[in-house]
């Protein structure tokens, strides 16, 4: 069988499984653009794990599928097309590969199974009040005390900390030398004494992010990844592995489909024709850009598979797709915003209209503002692109 036919039959298998095994109530959450939580994610992870697809990006020796990049991409795409949740990334895509590459056999045996079966939940302790885009300026201190580190400081924008068991954390173990050289990666149980997690309310009304205070938290030295002072390397490895995440534009296409359906449903009849068509035109322009991005994503996958350098393609992709999703949410907002933005937080708990339907469109619009801020802001991406283009 040739490559294309093989991939097509692989996609069929994936689709059949997704539609028959992903619980309808979970797919309904995705289809309505509602916020996913640990409950949905871990249920879905259990199902995928039982099928042997728990870790599409891991090697077989560690319980992964051993799929190549093209098959992984097909998996992500088909799952998105079927309204299955994207797999929770902090364990599978972030710390998992770091453990596989740099962890001790004991660490691997201890941590990888819980990630695979969805029982352990991870979050990322990187950003701090004074260290956002400039991550190397982080200040959370870890001091060695016998077989333990004592960690004190504050992390910020810690997504999912409120529903996590573990936080892989970059801490400062030395202030000497280059800023990047004094950083160490520790795996910290969030139930440790001295940890306080406080939600940071965000404009979308969802609970994603937190501040995490660490006050003399004792962490076994056995929970250190690799060597002391090499944390920056491991963190960078993790980010490099994630650079092709933007190649999966399937969720953006699904989001566009839903916005198109919203416009058609909301603006029916001849009296709405002009507005409906103006919004349809904008969606078309977004679709054109997404189609271009999808092709660039495929080209990037091809580059990686053939050993060619990726260059700035990930930055180009991230800029296009993040802004296209924002623009999609703007169109949706223009369709329904007048009746949602005016009724964001209920004052009266009961009454004929106490439940505001479709409020997710407004929440998504607000949530998506962050899409051009996290994971390397648009401005940082443009710096990266310009440095390459100008050669300086």
């Amino acid at each position, binding site marked *: 069988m040739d490559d294309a036919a093989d991939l097509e039959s692989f996609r069929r298998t994936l689709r059949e499984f997704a539609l028959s095994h992903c619980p309808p109530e979970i797919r309904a959450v995705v289809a309505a653009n509602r916020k996913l939580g640990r409950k949905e994610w871990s249920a879905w992870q259990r199902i995928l794990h039982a099928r042997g697809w728990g870790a599409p990006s891991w090697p077989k020796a560690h319980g992964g599928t051993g799929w190549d990049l093209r098959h992984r991409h097909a998996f992500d795409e088909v799952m998105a097309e079927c309204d299955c949740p994207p797999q929770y990334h902090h364990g599978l895509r972030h710390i998992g590969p770091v453990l596989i590459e740099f962890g001790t056999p004991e660490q691997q045996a201890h941590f990888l199974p819980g990630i695979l079966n969805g029982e352990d939940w991870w979050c990322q302790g990187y950003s701090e009040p004074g260290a956002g885009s400039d991550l190397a300026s982080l200040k959370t201190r870890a001091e060695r005390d016998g077989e333990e580190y004592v960690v004190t400081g504050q992390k910020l924008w810690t997504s999912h900390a409120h529903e996590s068991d573990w936080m892989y954390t970059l801490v400062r173990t030395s202030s000497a030398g280059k800023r990047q050289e004094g950083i160490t990666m520790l795996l910290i149980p969030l139930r440790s004494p001295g940890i306080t997690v406080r939600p940071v309310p965000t404009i979308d009304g969802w609970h994603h992010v937190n501040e995490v205070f660490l006050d003399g938290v004792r962490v076994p030295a056995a929970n250190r990844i690799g060597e002391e002072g090499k944390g920056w390397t491991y963190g960078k490895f993790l980010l490099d592995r994630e650079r092709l995440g933007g190649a999966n534009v399937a969720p953006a296409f699904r989001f566009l489909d839903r916005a198109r359906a919203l416009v058609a449903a909301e603006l029916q009849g001849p009296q709405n024709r002009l507005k409906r068509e103006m919004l349809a035109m904008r969606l078309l322009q977004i679709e*054109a850009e997404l189609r271009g991005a999808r092709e660039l994503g495929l080209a990037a996958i091809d580059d990686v598979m053939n050993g060619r350098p990726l260059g700035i393609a990930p930055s180009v992709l991230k800029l296009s797709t993040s802004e296209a999703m924002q623009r999609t949410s703007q169109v949706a907002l223009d369709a329904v915003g007048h009746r949602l933005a005016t009724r964001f937080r209920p004052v009266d708990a009961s009454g004929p209209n106490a439940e505001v339907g479709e409020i997710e469109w407004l929440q998504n619009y607000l949530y998506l503002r962050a899409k051009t801020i996290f994971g390397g802001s648009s401005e940082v991406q*443009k710096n990266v692109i310009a440095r390459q*283009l100008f050669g300086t």
Partner: protein
Amino acid sequence: MAYAPKPLLPGDAFEAALRFGLALEQDLAHRQDPPDRAACLARHWRDLLELGWAGTLLPEAAGGAGGAIADLVALADGAGRSAMPLPVAAACGVVPMLLRAVPDAAMQAAVATGRMRPCPVLEPGAVTARMEGEGWLLEGSLLGLELVPEPTHYLLACPIAAAEPGLFLLPADAPGLAVTRHLRIDGRLSADLALHSPARLLARGAAVREAVAAARDLGAFLTCVEAVSAMGALIEQTIAYLSARVQFGTALASFQALRHRVAEMHVAAENTRGLVAQLLRAAGTAPALPWREVSFAKLRLGEAGRFVAEAAIQMHGGMGVTEALPASRLARRIMLAEFEYGDRNWHAARLLEAA
């Protein structure tokens, strides 16, 4: 290492077209007078026909090269780097597509060798056709037609009944035909036609409808290829200018506002290039270009192209608005590409109507 645009299909055809375009650019550089420029374009056009470009897509049996669309793409890509002001898409792509409706090997052979140089007309403007006696009469006018230099004929699609298209052949020296020529903003030749002329009906009905649709889609695709190529050259020249130009004691290339704008130009150009690459793949596997993808590419080009063109002019400062600057010619080529083979609104309407 600073940026250099990549060819879609590297190879001899691309390089040859690139050199051809640069030679024409040099020849045109010191000619300001429009008639002088028009004569210069005609000379180079004759050279291009000698090289057999017009026969790229025509069958070998008719003296053509029997090539694929990809062969033409490589030429358009090379020509696009210098915004070569010659009608490659119209003469080498659109004409062979229209001739598919005309089973006439002698005519194909004449086109392949350059003896016959038909100027294609896909939109008849205000021209109408009616029977007069045994033959057909074309009447009316047509503005801003992209002109093939020294055309021998016009190959004109025009309705002959309510829902029936016809394809006419009108000799360039036909009685009752008046031609007024202009130079377009991208330096190419155009013509306004006023006619009250007899013409030969070559084909009619479904065959013409299909040929015209295929011709328009190929024309739009090749326009996108040229424009994406021109965008790459434009970004390269903008970077070179910003790197060389010193103000406030430092190279303009050190200013973040300008660097970010160049990054945005690159993202827009790459994105459009993605749509073109997708079409190029489809051209290699499907019998006809997929019209939806053509329309999405042209829609994207409309937005992204104008953004890149305007940004380049802005970043060249005063130099950007000078006629002679190569970058400003590239920018004007990209601006004009919007109006060839359906502008973005035409293509958006086609997509919306089919939805």
